[in-house]
């Protein structure tokens, strides 16, 4: 199983390298380490969001409200910053995490306590959270001139030659790696996705784990809210509109099975990077950015076709083993 997972990521990594190679034949400076660092930094927020979505999808659920959560939390921190520029940025990040956590917990409670399918709950909160952003802001925008220099500059500050935003992404990736591979919670998340009934018999509280998973995706949504607003220096109701599907697309390209139980941190990161590279490369190789949507759509379909084929092969191997035993 482990070897199989590695196999999939190696293929994805190879595809990414080939993609970078193809782009650099048209535009050699693209494969330059400095530029690749830039691409990584540009994709940081999508990577973080994809990891938050991944843990939800692994438990056979889905969180469609992440982009709306991002929008709402982003507006909260932007307005706080505009009203009280003295609040230090680390405290603002904590506030963003807490606001996101509360929004995620609402999703989680509805899924856990009322057993409503997550797609329905988050479809509802998707519109509610974005609407709440409008109510909160009264439809007004928070522009760059109202934000404090620290608010905008924090993630751009370089540390060891790499912007803080990239460091935050690296930190989140490391945390998720530890969570998924080294903790009981991580293993429970996989177990629920593979077989919820067996998980119950194994002593896992499926409902509570799902609640925690939604809290995690909520916190990630909140964190991304601050990162997004301070990166694009505008907070409005339209922020990240429709982005929830990009996040899911990154997961799907990263080989995370929508049926739950299959997927890894490396996959989610590579899936996000793949989309990030495409969107960064199109302008430099003189393809109209209007092509981006169709290209990522084709990438998603191709990824699903390939993933489905490898999943089917896995089934056959297990059957053969059983036959050999009996």
């Amino acid at each position, binding site marked *: 199983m482990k070897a199989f997972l590695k196999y999939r990521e190696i293929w994805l990594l190879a595809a990414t390298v080939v993609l970078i190679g193809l782009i650099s034949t048209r535009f050699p400076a693209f494969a330059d380490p400095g530029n690749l660092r830039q691409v990584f930094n540009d994709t940081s927020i999508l990577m973080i969001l994809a990891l938050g979505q991944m843990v939800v999808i692994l438990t056979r659920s889905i969180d469609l409200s992440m982009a709306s959560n991002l929008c709402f939390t982003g507006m909260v921190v932007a307005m706080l910053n505009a009203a009280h520029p003295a609040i230090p940025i680390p405290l603002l990040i904590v506030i963003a995490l807490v606001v996101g956590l509360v929004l995620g917990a609402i999703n989680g409670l509805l899924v856990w306590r009322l057993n409503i399918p997550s797609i329905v709950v988050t479809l*509802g*909160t998707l519109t509610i959270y974005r609407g709440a952003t409008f109510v909160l802001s009264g439809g007004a925008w928070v522009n760059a001139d109202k934000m404090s220099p620290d608010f905008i500059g924090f993630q751009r500050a370089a540390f060891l030659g790499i912007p803080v935003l990239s460091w935050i992404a690296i930190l989140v990736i490391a945390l998720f790696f530890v969570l998924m591979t080294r903790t009981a919670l991580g293993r429970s998340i996989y177990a629920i996705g593979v077989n919820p009934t067996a998980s119950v018999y194994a002593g896992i509280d499926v409902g509570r784990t799902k609640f925690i998973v939604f809290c995690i995706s909520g916190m990630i949504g909140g964190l991304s809210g601050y990162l997004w607003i301070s990166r694009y220096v505008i907070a409005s109701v339209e922020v990240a509109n429709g982005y929830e599907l990009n996040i899911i697309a990154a997961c799907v390209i990263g080989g995370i099975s929508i049926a739950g139980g299959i997927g890894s941190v490396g996959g989610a990161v590579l899936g996000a990077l793949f989309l990030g590279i495409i969107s960064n490369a199109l302008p430099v190789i003189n393809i109209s950015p*209007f092509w981006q949507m169709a290209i990522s759509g084709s990438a*998603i379909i191709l990824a699903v076709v390939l993933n489905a084929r490898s999943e089917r092969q896995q089934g056959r191997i297990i059957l053969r083993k059983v036959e050999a035993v009996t």
Partner: protein
Amino acid sequence: MTEIPAPRHIPDRLDKPLSSAIFSWEALLVVVAVAIFAINSFSSPYFLDPYSLSDLTFNFTEKGLIAFAMALLIISGEIDLSVAAIIALASTMMGMAVQAGAGTPVLVLIGIVVGLGCGAFNGLLVTRLGLPSIVVTIGTMSLFRGIAFIILGDQAYKGYPESFTFFGQGYVWWVVSFELVLFLIAAIVYWLVLHRTSFGRRVFAIGNNPVAAQFSGVRVSRIKFILFCLTGLMSGIASVLITSRLGSTRPSIAQGYELEVITMVVLGGVSILGGAGSILGVVLAAFIMGLVTFGLGLLNVPGIVMSIFIGLLLIIVIALPIVWRRLHGGR
């Protein structure tokens, strides 16, 4: 706490005793609809005007047409997130045809055929390759709308012929619009198909247990393929209506409609897990969503705030029976 749904009660007959009808989902929706109607007519003097009420119907007819096909698809255990993208692609193709000098009948044909083709493409990917529909249609959603963006970029197609405007702006009789008539005809057709034909029973059977349905001689793949085609077809028809109503095509046309259509279907009592639902429920849900958006619009509530009400309505209407059952200790 497990995700495994309890075995559903499948009656031999569709005619239920009166007592169960009173407590049914549809009854709950009727109550909600009447309540919203009453609140609206009290809060705005302009609401109870035949012309206002006629305008109201445009809020849900186009989405409602897609919702009927989507209801069948969701009952069978699949989903289609690409419907709004199909509208965009079909509308773009119609726009191209206009530039080439096509007349109204050709335009309508193109809209419908493109819709059908997109639906068939989804259906092939899901049934031939055995892929999960939610992911496939997220992909085709980007692909279809992406093609519209490639063709149009930041441009727009205009100049639709005069006779083409009838579909989205014309009235059949007094204040009864063509769109409303089409919506009602589609409601009756889909009601007949789902609740009065063996095809409808097969759709329910697939949704409840696809493996059992397969062993009972139901051609699961073929029926799912037909349902995807139907959803594409209805999206194509909706595209004709919207393009005709707006009189122009941009690649961002009908953005976000897919989630509104699914909200309509789920609000109508169709189980998102498949296997249960009714067309009457979807019709009522369409009316409710139209009433809410229009009523709040008359009170000058911005569209984005209305979406809060729709979202709350969706969660509350679904949570209410669950909470109620729990408080009364389960039946």
